[in-house]
Every structure is written in C-alpha cells, then in structure tokens.
C-alpha cells in the first residue's frame, strides 16, 4: 500500500508539473501507472466470453488498448471503484475513448454467470467483454499470464473472495504496457490512456 501511495503522489506531482509547464510534452512520456519489471505477454491467453462464439484473446485491435480486470460482481468496494474510475477516465479523453476496450474476468464463476457479468459491466461501459472461465484450470491459466491471484473459499456458508485490485492495460501486441494499482484515480488513468493512444500508437 505504501508503494501505491508513492506512485500516486508522484503521479499527482507530475500532473501539477505538467500543468505548470503547459505545452511541454515531456511529462507525457511518463506513465502514472506501474510498468511491470518483466514483460508480460498475455496475447496467447484465452477465456470464455459471454455472448461470443469463440473465446476472447487479449489482443486489442491495432491502435487500441484493452483494460483487463479480475473481479466479481458481489464485490462492493474495489471492483465498482475501479470500474467507475475507468468510466470517468474515458469521459476525460474524448474521442480517444473509442479506442479503449474493457474486459473483466470473474474470479467467482460459480456465482457470476454470463448474463450476470454482462449486465454488471453494462452499468459501466457500452463496450465490454464479460469473461467467465468455464473451469478452474481456465481461470488459473489466464491468471498465470497476468501473474494475478485469486481464490474463493466458503467458510460456514460465508463466501470469501481474494483478488488483486490491479487493472492491466494491454496493447495490440498482447503486451501489458502498464498496470494500474487499486486507488489510481481517473485523472491518472486518462493521462496514461492519452499517452498510450497517441504518442505510442
């Protein structure tokens, strides 16, 4: 958590600096999110997608980015906080938002059916992929690509879910180009999306 705070603090500092320097574009080279130290290529991972005849692979169209999140619909805190931040980030970047795709993989497929996850995501975006692993092996395989972790345990009828709060941004080569730790706000997300969709397209 301390690490996240540092990232956010430096991000806010960079934004202020950018504002002060107005048209200087150097700060635009610096992403507010976290760049994984070792490259993660997730392009070969596939997961069952609700409403689709073929599994989803994590390779967005050329010039677009795909935001990937591991969550579940009974999640009252982290998931909607991040989904709303993504929604607000897209509002901030105008026409570029058309190049932002969103996928949520449920880590709780026993409760999250295709229909439930689709309705949930429609609350946040008009463009989304509701990904519901059809087996535990399928979920673990995609988590391995992202180096993500989750578990669902039932203790005396009370279901406890563990999941990461990170949102992953994937480019059209299937590479995770930046990770957004939980708590990164929509301003920083919009900042990163602008960089990824303009300077690096």
């Amino acid at each position, binding site marked *: 958590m301390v690490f996240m705070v540092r990232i956010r603090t430096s991000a806010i500092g960079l934004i202020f600096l950018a504002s002060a320097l107005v048209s200087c574009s150097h700060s635009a080279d610096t992403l507010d999110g976290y760049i994984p130290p070792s490259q993660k290529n997730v392009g070969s991972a596939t997961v069952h997608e609700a409403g689709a005849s073929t599994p989803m692979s994590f390779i967005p169209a050329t010039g677009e980015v795909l935001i990937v999140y591991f969550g579940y619909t*009974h999640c009252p805190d982290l998931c909607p906080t991040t989904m709303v931040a993504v929604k607000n980030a897209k509002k901030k970047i105008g026409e570029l938002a058309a190049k932002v795709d969103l996928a949520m993989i449920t880590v709780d497929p026993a409760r999250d059916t295709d229909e439930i996850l689709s309705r949930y995501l429609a609350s946040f975006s008009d463009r989304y992929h509701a990904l519901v692993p059809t087996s535990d092996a399928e979920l673990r395989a995609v988590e391995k690509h992202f180096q993500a972790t*989750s578990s669902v345990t039932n203790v005396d009828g009370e279901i406890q879910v563990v999941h990461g709060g990170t949102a992953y941004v994937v480019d059209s080569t299937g590479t995770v180009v930046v990770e957004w730790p939980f708590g990164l706000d929509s301003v920083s997300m919009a900042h990163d999306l602008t960089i990824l969709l303009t300077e690096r397209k």
Partner: protein
Amino acid sequence: MKTKTPRLALGVLLAIGLSTLVSCGGSDSASDTTIATTPVITVTGQWARTSPDATDMGAAYLKINSDADDTLVSAMVDTSVAAMAQIHEMVPVENGMSTESTMDSSAMTMQEVDHIDIVAGTQLELKPGGYHIMLMKLVKPLLTGETFKITLTFTKAGAVVIDVPVLEDAP
C-alpha cells in the same frame, strides 16, 4: 456471523434507548451531520455508491470526527434498504493463499470488523480500499440521487442517524 447477533442486538437496544437523547440532532445537510451526543460526533462526506446492475451488494463511506475517544461498534440500515449492514475492511492477502505460485502483491480480501476505535481529534475515514459499510442483499438497487439512512452506533455516543446520498463516485 455467529458473533454478529449479540452485537446487533446491543446496537438496536442502544439505538432505541438513546434515540431520545439524540432527537435534537439531525441535520438538514446530507453531507454534514453533527449530533448532540457526548462525545460530540460529526459525520461528513457520507455517500453510498450507485449499485451496478445484477448485484445486490452495496457500500457506503463516510468520515467521522469525535471530540473524545469513542468506538464505532455497528452500522445498521432499515430492512427496506438491505437485509444487513456490516463494517468491513479491505486487507492485503499473503501470496501464499493462491493455488498458483504467482506474484500478485495487490491481492486483497474483505473481512468484517468488530469495531473501529476513534481517537479524539483524529478523523476516521471509511473510503474505498479501506473501511466501508457493506450493504448486503439490497432490497432494490441504490440509484443515483436517492438518499437513505444509516444508524451508526458508538460505545459512548450511542446511536447517530445519518442521511446518506447515493452517488456514482466519491463526492
């Protein structure tokens, strides 16, 4: 869950017993509630998130100040809003819980908390990623613009009823 009933029962008794003492409280402002309790409790910035479609879980957030040390022991909502409210905290999880040997330092889970100590003069903030009031089995979706009541119960100050607006994002 097993230990919840006695605490809730205590909360109800406190709420009823102390309601006459705090009846002069209340505030027209949904964002700032100061109640004439002892100690004096001030709740600000309260909000609940608009509930997404297809889920019956919700969360509410707020900030609490007290002029003397106290303890928040429960949060309750009317059964016309949700079946139950609980105070929860997001906590990091050691990677060892995973069945895969991946490194994911962001893994978190929710756990119910029995109480939260409030230190005089130090604001307690319930916010995303930290503490929240979890609303379980919502009777109907929380829609932006609506308002509902939450009763917070403190060991010393007793019951404090606040109006909570439903917002899409933090105010």
